[in-house]
């Protein structure tokens, strides 16, 4: 498949919509582990992104520039811990898509792997710490191996999202080791990590997006 900068913008808009829908659910999850504001934080950030998409970014056709702007806008709007994490993810994605108005299967694979690695580098969390990384690392690993084998991005991304879902679900059973919730110790068992959940939602939104637009350039 091929993704144009317009397609990338449409995807970001779908994330905005998805976050508004899931906002309360993400806050509910966060109330068990943190201060109950994860949905609000994500909403503040993505609303700022939408505003940017509708103004300064209208004319931008470089997927790299677009991703940098999305990352920085999100960061400036939220701060918090998700700010630097997602900003680093999108900026790493931007590096792989610099000067490109259209992303092909190979580019998209690189983009998402760089995204996941960026988040991990910034947060210094490992799988099993009960964070976004529990979703993103298995996702990136599966995407890489599956794409290498099949050279089919859509298939590889779909398998990778399944791995992401398993990773997200695994956070229910583990003790939190990073962030504010790490102070909960055993009391964190049973609660699904909100960061791992919203990360999964973003990936599954992209999967849905490419499925709806498959077999054509978007």
């Amino acid at each position, binding site marked *: 498949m091929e993704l144009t900068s317009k397609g990338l913008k449409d995807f970001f808009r779908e994330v905005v919509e998805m976050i508004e829908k899931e906002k309360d659910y993400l806050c509910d999850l966060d109330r068990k582990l943190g*201060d109950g*504001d994860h949905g*609000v934080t994500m909403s*503040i950030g993505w609303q700022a992104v939408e505003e940017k998409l509708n103004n300064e970014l209208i004319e931008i056709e470089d997927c790299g520039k677009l991703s940098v702007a999305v990352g920085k806008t999100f*960061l*400036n709007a939220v*701060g*918090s811990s998700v700010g*630097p994490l997602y900003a680093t993810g999108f900026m790493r994605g931007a590096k792989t898509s610099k000067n490109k108005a259209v992303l092909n299967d190979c580019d998209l694979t690189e983009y998402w792997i760089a995204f996941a690695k960026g988040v991990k580098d910034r947060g210094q969390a490992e799988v099993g710490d009960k964070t976004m990384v529990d979703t993103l690392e298995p996702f990136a690993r599966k995407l890489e191996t599956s794409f290498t084998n099949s050279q089919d991005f859509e298939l590889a991304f779909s398998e990778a999202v399944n791995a992401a879902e398993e990773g997200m679900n695994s956070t229910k059973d583990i003790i939190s080791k990073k962030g504010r919730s790490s102070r909960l110790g055993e009391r964190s068992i049973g609660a699904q990590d909100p960061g791992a959940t919203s990360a999964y939602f973003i990936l599954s939104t992209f999967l849905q997006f490419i499925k709806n637009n498959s077999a054509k350039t978007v």
Partner: protein
Amino acid sequence: MKKLVNNPVNVVEEMVEGYVRAHPDYIRQLPSNDRALVTARETKEGKVGILIGGGSGHEPAFMGYVGEGLADGVAVGNIFASPSPDPILEVTKAIDKGAGVVYLYGNYAGDVMNFGMAAEMADLEEDIEVGMALATDDVASAPKAEKDKRRGIAGELFIYKAAGAAADFGYNLEDVVRVANKANDHIRSMGVGTSPCYLPQTGEPSFEIGEDEMEIGLGHHGEPGLEKGPLETADRIADRLVHDILADIEIVKGDEVAVLVNGLGSTPKMDLYIVYRRVEQILSERGVKIYRSYVGDYITSLEMGGCSVTLMKLDEELTDMIDHPVDCPMFVQK
């Protein structure tokens, strides 16, 4: 939950606007960033800049502590969320007087990342030297062997006090950082929560607690503490908090301390003084001298109920720092 707000989305912007308009002789907003506030008064050339910051919802922290003897600037985040690097960097540029800037903040993952990114940008893009000191005073948040993992709560006020004084005394960047870290090493805090706060955007309580319950070791954002149990008397609570603090730091007969009994937002001063009364009794019985005491709402958590007790063990240098006068809208010490 009833709140006096307009659109909940705008609470931070509207609060900051109200604050700077209420105290124009103390603080001003930088034109480059609404969340970047600096002292309205001239600071000396060559003085190390003191930058504080964190999420909103802790008022009067953090912007209430910009003023003489404390901080030169503050970066304001969303509710309970670290500010992003942008306002931190803008404040850094504005308060650097050629001697560098020291960032003081609590040990939270978000703050560590955002302040860290801002420090890198200050160094690379602006050539401003930045030092950092983190508050890790909450004994309930991690075992003693992992003090660097503990979160910062009300004891942060004493770190501002120490670092702000050191900067005023003309200490260089390295020494201001040393004093701030020393203060942190000498500070221990622990809190109790009796009722949650409610985030303006969700209207939901930050944690669940029964009418007749309390949570020992509760964090400043409603993070669960050590244990939930039936609500006890002020004396029993003070006993527990002071006991856990003294088990963590050696404070013996003849030592001098500064004491802070900090309200979390909705606990009346009456209750805070009743808690202080018991803290004073315990320390007197042990022959520990209270050199200075602070009782009030210094670092809150919206309308959360409860309080924390902080002790700072003083030495000669920290005594000089704690004695240094302060003039801020929310905190005056002559």
